């Protein structure tokens, strides 16, 4: 029994070391990839009174603006859709989305991309992305927002 106990303890230590090393590698990889491979984690650019989103400020007129070689999109996510309801961009140009909600929480996920935003009333989320392939991309609400939640699917078009 004494003997067995020591063998187990040796493996135990090796396993704990392996576990810690694995965790350290993961943390370093995450940090490295985020610094070098672009990142689409949404950031906040300020707060906005959700009860006035529909009537005042930039979001009262949801739109895509072209500024030089880039696009800026101001988007309202509401129960149960998005405004503007269809967006068009040219491939290979940077698009910056500003998104907010006038009512409850929503999602803004663009399929086949890394764009995935938790849209929270009161917060303006910002995320930038450059589409590298032309085509239609679905926009999917992935946060429960009421009875019509599953219908909250829109699209954007990336033109060649």
């Amino acid at each position, binding site marked *: *029994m004494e003997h*067995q*106990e020591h063998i*187990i*303890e040796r*493996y*135990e230590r090796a*396993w*704990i070391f392996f*576990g*810690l090393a694995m*965790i350290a590698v*993961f*943390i370093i990889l*995450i*940090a490295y*990839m*985020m610094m070098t*491979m672009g990142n*689409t*984690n*949404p*950031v*906040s*650019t300020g*707060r906005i*009174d*959700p*009860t006035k989103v529909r009537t005042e400020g930039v979001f009262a007129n949801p739109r895509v603006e072209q500024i030089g070689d880039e696009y800026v999109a101001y988007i309202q996510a509401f129960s149960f859709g998005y405004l503007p309801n269809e967006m068009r961009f040219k491939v290979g140009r940077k698009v910056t989305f500003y998104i907010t909600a006038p*009512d*409850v*929480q929503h*999602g803004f*996920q663009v*399929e086949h991309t*890394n*764009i*995935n*935003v*938790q849209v*929270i*009333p*009161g*917060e*303006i*989320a910002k995320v930038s992305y450059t589409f590298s392939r032309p085509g239609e991309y*679905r926009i*999917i*609400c*992935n*946060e*429960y*927002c*009421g*009875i*019509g*939640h*599953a*219908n909250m*699917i829109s699209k954007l078009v990336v033109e060649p």
Partner: protein
Amino acid sequence: MAVQTLTRFDAYADAPEKKYALYMMMLGFSALALGTFFGPLQAFNYGGLDLYPLLKPVFQNYYQGLSLHGVLNAIVFTQLFAQTIMIYLPARELGLRPNMKLAWASFWMALAGLLIAAVPLLLNEASVLYTFYAPLKASWAFYTGAAIFVLSSYLSIYIALELWLRWRRANPGKITPLATFMAVAFWLMWFLASLGLVVEALFLIPWSLGLLPGVDPLLMRTLFWYTGHPIVYFWLLPAYTLAYVTLPKLAGGKLVSDPLARLVFVLFLLFSVPVGFHHQFADPGIAPYWKFIHTVLTMMVAVPSLITAFTIAASLEVAGRANGGKGLLGWIAALPWHNPTVLAFLLGFLAFIPGGAGGIVNASFNLNQNVHNTVWIPGHFHLQVGTLVTMAAMGTAFWLIPHLTGKPLVARGLAVASQWLWFLGMFIMTFALHWMGFLYAIPRRAHISGSPLAMEAFKESSAWMALNIVSGVILLVAAVLFFYVIFATALQGHRDPKRVLEEVPFAEAISKPEGSGLARVTERVWFWFGLAAVLVVLAYGPVLYQMFTNMLPVPGVRLW
């Protein structure tokens, strides 16, 4: 004649804590039975099959069913099971009686809270799902009932600590027995973890009563996830405790290391709570560097689970070899797979491995972008709470109900079948959900089967959807078998104390705590608790301070 006198005889006269444990656990399984009934309906939904119209006279919509499923299974059942195990095991281990007045008070409080919250849930007045994100606003009775229910666990915290301190006074200088140590670390962790939900309730209850015009959605969300991640360890640690202190013995072996088990629980006490932002990686309103700090802390909380994987596997190997298993893998076949309790744990841990790997993906700040709020997430947590945690509870019920009541297990073969089917069904379903979320961005908790638009959009994943239907059927059969076995066992009139486990099967340890420096260090529970509190303040303090001082109240709406 003998049987008749036995039924009249008070089986709990000399062990009132047995009656408490039985009532607490059976209330939990009753909640689980109703909550689980909706599970297959959700699986069918993700197979494109909408059965909700058939339930229309009673249940109004998918989201009502989903709210019941989440609240009853993940809040009610899990807490009641913790209040059973993490009170009963230490009481038995120390040979002390818990404060029975408070124990019953916690039972009645939990029941009252459950009933108050059940009314709006059943009336479709609280279809806000398990996360009840503001500004979706439920009936006041939902928030109030839930608060009373959760606060009943504070009585359990007191009961467990009082039991432990009473033992310590009588045994100065001795090392706390393992199950009691785990219970103390567990309840202290929960006290720290539950504060988010308690503070959130202080906003939501007045808001739902019309006394507050609005609440800040970001703050409510942050408070929810402050409790919402550590709550998964609140679900998991009773299962781990049972795996450490009972499974080795049930499998025919010993626990390889007692001190290491203590280290695991201290690590959970330290790292369970300051990790909630990994549920909010996609949120605006929390700075990226705070999210990165929580990424690192979340990775740290994987360490105690990795240690657990080793210790449990090694203990099972010791058991398998003691049962005559030879060779590199022969010990696996030599484990008592015919024992429904051991089987439940073995299959549960098997599912926990891919579940844990998926958890590391979710915790990775950047990878999470691809899976956030897709069906990958329910795929992930059904491997964890839906498989290991639930199967540990189901497996434990197979010996614990007989032990508490003196009534032998009914239909042992069906008990074994229920665990194989549960595992198979969960494995198929979670496999499908992971891929549907990752490859096709199919959103979680969406009534897609009721939306032709959504079904058209997601038609590429129809092969995966078929697997959800298959899993739903298998899980429904598994659930029917399981609930038949436990209710038939508990409700039979026949007591036969010779055919049940008389004592809790506490496992002996190979590496003992006496003389272990590690066990001595972990014994300083209040120091570790203080350190855990400091970690929470550092990881949450500045962000919460900023949120509390910049509130933007938003009025509530009902959109279901």
